């Protein structure tokens, strides 16, 4: 098989680094060659952040080349719009129903874009819009929001369910393992 390219987009503070790590480890445990990257630093303070995971038989660059991303995992709606130039035609977009206003929207100098999901669909992407926070809440803890999104992602990837569970166990705080697994399962239903 070729390389699978996943782009994760979000806002600093949303826990993107952990999501990127879990996807990377799951692919690694499944026996793939993998490279991942992320931008951390100044943007951690509520700015634009992104991560990339690329896995397959042999992967060189940790950064996804323009137009080659297969899946976008958008932790926030506006941030999902920012990286379309990296996406393949008809790529999958898993998008969290979550709007975090950027500074210029808060100070009323710009408007938060409307109808993002419809816009993405009209561009030909295969969009899965997920109310991850709500699913996390019904699963028992809103903090499992990102794991809910990983649950959706897991259905698109050639990585076994058991591998995901093992990886989640190893990467979330010990006290929260059970609740995270409940959230993961719930989002796969």
């Amino acid at each position: 098989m070729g390389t699978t390219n996943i782009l994760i987009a979000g806002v600093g503070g949303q826990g993107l680094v952990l999501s990127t790590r879990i996807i990377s480890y799951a692919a690694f445990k499944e026996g793939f060659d993998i490279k991942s990257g992320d931008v951390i630093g100044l943007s951690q303070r509520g700015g634009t952040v992104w991560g990339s995971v690329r896995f397959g038989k042999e992967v060189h660059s940790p950064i996804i080349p323009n137009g080659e991303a297969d899946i976008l995992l958008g932790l926030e709606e506006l941030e999902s719009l920012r990286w379309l130039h990296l996406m393949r035609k008809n790529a999958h977009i898993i998008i969290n129903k979550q709007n975090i206003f950027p500074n210029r929207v808060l100070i009323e100098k710009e408007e938060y874009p409307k109808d993002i999901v419809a816009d993405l669909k009209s561009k030909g992407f295969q969009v899965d819009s997920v109310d991850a926070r709500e699913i996390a809440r019904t699963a028992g803890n809103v903090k499992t929001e990102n794991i809910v999104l990983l649950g959706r992602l897991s259905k698109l990837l050639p990585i076994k369910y058991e591998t995901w569970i093992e990886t989640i166990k190893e990467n979330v705080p010990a006290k929260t393992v059970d609740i995270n697994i409940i959230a993961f399962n719930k989002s796969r239903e």
Partner: protein
Amino acid sequence: MGNTELMTGNEAVSRGFWENGGIFAASYPGSPTVEILESMKKYSEIEARWAPNEKVALEMSIGASMAGGRTMVSMKHVGINIAADPFMTFTQIRTKGGFVLVIGDDPGLNSSQNEQDSRFWGKFANIPVLEPSNPQEIKDYTKLALNLSEEFGTPVLLKLTTTLCHGRAPVQLGERTEAVVEGFVEDQGRFCMLPPYANKQQYFMQERIQKLREYNNSTSINALTEKADADTLIITSGVSYQYLLETQPNASILKLAMVYPLPIEKIQELSSKYKKIIVVEELMPFIEEILKANGIKAEGKRFFPFTGELTTEIIRKGLYEAGILEEKPVINEKNIQIPPRTPMLCAGCPHRPVFHILKKAKAVVMGDIGCYSLGILEPFEVLKTNISMGASLGMVQGVASTLRKAGKSEPLVAMIGDGTFFHSGMTGMVELSKTKDNITVIVMDNRTTAMTGGQFTPTTGEYLEGKGDHTISIKGILEAFGIKDITVLDQFKYKETKETMLAAMKREGLSIIITTRPCALNFKIKEPYFYVDQEICISCRSCIGVNCPPISMKQYEGKDKKNSYINPDMCVGCSVCSQVCPVGAIKRSQKEEA
């Protein structure tokens, strides 16, 4: 997989150091190298120390190496500027315990104030520079660096970049091999850099670099991939190599591991077989210029940018323009129609009320480096300068002196954090302690180096009441400098803070304000949230001016004007917005929601 582990570049550095007998590591935090020292802490054989600045980190490491230990010092690219003084003299010495200097460059300025290309230190300081291209190589080159250091008696620069430091990939693990520590053996001729000892070391360095060049000509660490019937040779190094592989060019590739001193003779010999020599390197034309100076017809920056990170598509485009790729690459344009998302101070950030007050006061503020640098951005736009850590203090005196001489004096403010104060602000304070100009220095003591992830500062212990390290009082230091006008305050008492600040700015001479609220993020501060009572809110937008991420204007049903809204999931209850609301519409909720 067995002995393979997924690692970031930073973790691979630490692992390589540990496996190869490392015993002492020092650093000062800065993106992208922070996690090197942080991941070093799990290896009990290594003493890993955060220093108050890069100069002290380097000096401790010099000592460790002179005592015979295998040593590493790591920092972000600008860190070496402040450590350059000891470094440029240390490099003259025949190194004892293996010494690796790890520098993380930040092409594209993801989290930095400049974009300097650290490979130049190799030439400047007469030391070899290694440039790995993935985490496995990072680990391997760490070993190589320690060995070369001891074999040739030289510090070795391991040059990384943001993408390399943060990127993850599988790395083969090995066991630790202990290195013998001989101890400090007195040898003034070796360790005292004064004439005549230092004069003779100029020749030593010259010979050392010559020997390294011979080594580099003969070593197999530089990888040549020859393509039959290709008429182009591409010379590259570092992460650019990985991008280059993605483009699958019809060319032979020479991937350099050691970019200084270059294996000139080897490249000369190789280049005679090719029509075109193309250099693919990030930032400055470092390799290109040396090749050109040695008569090799290489081209690079004609086709590739001199600023920013390279990417696969930038390389594709350059190779197309150079006539190496035949197909014109199709590059999707970025979507720029959507609002940008610049970083913001966190909800409950202790810096926020101070900016709010300074903005209203229209103060002229010299800024410094830390989370408070975000006061440069909208809507505060309070800080008028930003140069380097600690610079605000010297600069403010320079501005004051010049304005006074020109008969244009006005009140001035400088702002500095606790981390930066201890890093390089104290000497500036010594100078300011005798000023007669109207200068107010605000020390934002949030008890941590917040911007780089919350490392301790010498005031963390005071806040944690003895649970942290030993503590140093900033007020005590300033008093010892003979400064009298010092106010320590809680900036979440908005009105008092405002009065104190305005009064201080009116007083001639130096006045100091030390704010003491801790960083909300790193100390995980969360109090019951605040909410807007829409029946009271008059839509004046004063709270919007506080610029806290949870606060926005919202169209409530049945109202014609928008009213303020606070997102309860995001608010951490610092109360600042409620104190600027003129009608008391912002109220504290009873208890924190889960």
